[in-house]
């Protein structure tokens, strides 16, 4: 009796086409819009940067300023890899400016400098910078 019930119980849990399924078993498609709004789309709720009051979103992104504009660093040289390495990810990729907050002209110069540094083996093309 117990043996008969147990296999059927497990079978009903495994077969996905069963109509009756507890809420916890449902695929996380239903959960994703909630979670995705927070972590997967930084542009969306991060638009709360411009909003003054809470417009439904509790969190906001603090204003990101361009490091070069603030510190008045004009010369972005391919030789100072300590400065350049701040804008390079662990994988060696150049970090986009929406994450670092760099302004467009400085991002362009920074990107050229990083590519020059990569060519002269001061920075890696891929992988951890030693």
């Amino acid at each position, binding site marked *: 009796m117990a043996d008969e019930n147990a296999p059927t119980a497990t079978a009903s849990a495994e077969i996905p086409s069963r109509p009756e399924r507890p809420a916890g078993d449902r695929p996380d498609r239903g959960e994703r819009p909630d979670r995705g709004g927070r972590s997967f789309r930084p542009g969306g709720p991060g638009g709360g940067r411009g909003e003054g009051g809470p417009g439904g979103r509790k969190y906001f992104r603090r204003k990101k300023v361009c490091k070069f504009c603030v510190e008045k660093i004009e010369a972005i040289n391919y030789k100072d890899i300590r400065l350049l390495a701040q804008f390079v990810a662990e994988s060696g990729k150049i970090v986009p400016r929406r994450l670092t907050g760099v302004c467009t002209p400085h991002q362009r110069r920074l990107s050229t400098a990083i590519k*020059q540094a990569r060519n002269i083996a001061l*920075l*890696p093309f891929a992988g951890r910078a030693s």
Partner: protein
Amino acid sequence: MNRTYELMFIVRPDMAEEDQDKLISTLETAVTSTGGQVKSVERMGKRHLAYMVRRFRDGIYVLLTVEGSGGLIHELERRLRVTEPVIKFLTVRIDEEQKRLDKIKAIRDARRKTSAAPAAVAGEAAGETPAATA
């Protein structure tokens, strides 16, 4: 004929000191014979490379600042390409960038001077008026 270039090249790490000197002096003579001018030579020493170049993990970096025409750089790069110990080189033109930096510096200095003069005048005026009212 007044373009300034920065030529950085990497030499294999097991190259002797005098061979490096010989190579650099060869390049310098090539520069002066073509009518250019060597601004500076900087040896940055042995460094670990970010990736393997021709099966080497370390290299000796040399930075050469040269003033001359584009043809001169063409000649220098040709020499570096055939030189066996040189494993990598990079040439960057720096006179335009230098011009831009100088311009910014000049604007900043001018701004600082003009802001210093009215500040002195304002200081005097502010010093007088509280004394007058008091």
